[in-house]
């Protein structure tokens, strides 16, 4: 499998900035504008969150954005409608991120086909276990040229690291600390040990560090230990500010990526 994700890691390869936002937040129809503004400000990869009523792996910020998005009327059908012609204006890799139940209800087959039609490059579904993916869905993902992005955490065993590396094809999402999203900020000594352990492990896939990356300092730090980092809650938080969407986004990205 080869798509925009592989191209990004082969080309740029370091200081990659990936940004997550919840589709349908703050307003139902902000999705396309947010994507285009992120691209304009030099973001390398975008994770589009599909809101779910019961996001157990998420902290308060993304819980809130998910709730508002659903109240605004966001659904997978609506999201696909909004993204229909996104590839006419956007070239960077796009990933959909969400929980398994809405995808199951849409139908995994139809969901993946639709992703290919639109030009989605990968999926992150934290509550789709590796074993179920391999047995039931791997062939469908591959047939639609979609990378499934797996998570690793400080508690992931060496044996499982190898299994996950083997099953991955795009990149590995390295969760910085065992937590829900947005729960902790900063990078401690303990985490540095974990990052160094993983660096020394010799994984075949590139890695992005996520959870707890919220400003220039943490982004810079994370980039020393992986090919780049993911910012989620901090960006979603920034969208709450009462100013025009394009200003909010350029201001935020500038603050994260300055001098990097």
């Amino acid at each position, binding site marked *: 499998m080869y798509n925009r994700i592989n191209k990004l890691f082969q080309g740029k390869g370091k200081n990659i900035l990936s940004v997550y936002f919840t589709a349908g937040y703050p307003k139902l129809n902000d999705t396309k504008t947010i994507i285009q503004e992120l691209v304009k400000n030099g973001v390398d990869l975008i994770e589009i969150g599909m809101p779910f009523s019961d996001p157990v792996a998420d902290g308060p910020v993304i819980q809130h954005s998910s709730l508002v998005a659903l109240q605004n009327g966001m659904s997978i059908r609506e999201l696909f409608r909004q993204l229909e012609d996104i590839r006419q204006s956007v070239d960077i890799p796009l990933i959909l991120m969400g*929980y398994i139940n809405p995808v199951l209800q849409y139908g995994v087959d139809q969901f993946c086909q639709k992703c290919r039609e639109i030009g989605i490059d990968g999926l992150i579904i934290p*509550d789709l276990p590796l074993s179920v993916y391999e047995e039931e869905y791997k062939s469908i993902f591959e047939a639609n040229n979609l990378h499934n992005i797996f998570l690793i955490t400080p508690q992931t065993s060496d044996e499982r690291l190898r299994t996950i590396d083997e099953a991955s094809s795009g990149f590995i999402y390295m969760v910085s600390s065992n937590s829900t999203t947005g729960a902790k900020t900063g990078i401690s000594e303990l985490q540095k040990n974990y990052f160094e352990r993983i660096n020394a492990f010799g994984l075949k896939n590139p890695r992005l560090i996520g959870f707890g990356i919220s400003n220039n300092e943490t982004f810079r730090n994370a980039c020393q230990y992986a090919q780049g980092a993911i910012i989620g809650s901090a960006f979603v938080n920034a969208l709450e500010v009462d100013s025009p969407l394009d200003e909010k986004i350029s201001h935020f990205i500038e603050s994260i990526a300055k001098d990097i």
Partner: protein
Amino acid sequence: MDYQVNRKGYYGEFGGAYIPEMMVPNIQELESQYLEIMHSYDFRQEFIGLMKNYVGRPSPLYFAKRLSEKYQSNIFLKREDLNHTGSHKINNTIGQILVAKKLGKTRIIAETGAGQHGLATATVCALMGLKCIVYMGAVDVERQAPNVKKMRMLGAEVISAVSGNKTLKDATNEAMRDWINNPVDTYYIIGSVVGPHPYPDMVARFQSVISEEIRWQLEEQIGRENPDRIIACVGGGSNAAGAFYHFLNQEGVELIGVEAAGKGIDTKETAATITLGTPGVLHSSRSILMQTEDGQITEPYSISAGLDYPGIGPFHANLFATRRATYLWATDAEVLDAALELTRLEGIIPALESAHALAVLPKIKLKPEEITVINLSGRGDKDMETYLNHFGY
């Protein structure tokens, strides 16, 4: 037919462990050790001793004479309401706290709806000297105030969950988030046959003492081990799982679960999951749930906080799919009538949850010679305010 969990953690097509990677080490640790721990000699000794001398087991199987006369049949009540802490929930928390200790955990978390599981967890934590945090929906904190006070007196920290409808589902979400954030020292005592494998199987095994006792108690009292039917209320389904467990392969025993219909199954204020739900994944297992076409979980409603849940354990989803068990429902109004009826006929005030099982008696054709066992899963102390408001005493 085998109604038990298979090697991969599934009951037929239901079950599994749909967990985020952050929970994998804890679930794998538990999955690889729970059976070995439960079967070990030390564990059995301690568990059996506590069940007898601390919980007060066996719980009586009581022939309800006046209730039987009313329905012109033979009705026995399995008195789980007489257990220490007032419900069947203690069977499971005694078991799981011993598992947690064997795994070397020092911090215990739990979710609770009616507060019965929270109370049973706070109790065993006090008994073992372990730190206890209970997540409870803000609405339930209000409507089950006596249990909140008891938990606090027992030394537990009760944290109010303010997301969603602020009931059991939301408390469960918060407990799962806590476990993700505290992966090393913490053990999560799930209170029902829900959650990722191995929880549904482990909880069903701990609750199976209910049906194990029913069998020898019936034999002792009427000379036969099998009743004609067992009736139990179902939220997540732990008391029903325990009451059905040893009868699963006794095909002659009719198994009836009763769901909370709230204000009616044709309204939006209901928790009748099997009646109204479809297959999907909630709280890490594949089962039947109440959801929208887009796969968003619907907010449930029931007068009874313990049954106010939009899902059901995979154990029951499979019994429903294989038609081994039947699932009926009872509305809030029917439940209140049934609670008063038992109170006046037998001098037993049942929990609102358990009154659901009683409420289907008028809907079933009971024959005079038949034997029906109703699992009276809990007592009504915690529901006095609801009863008093409704009946106006």
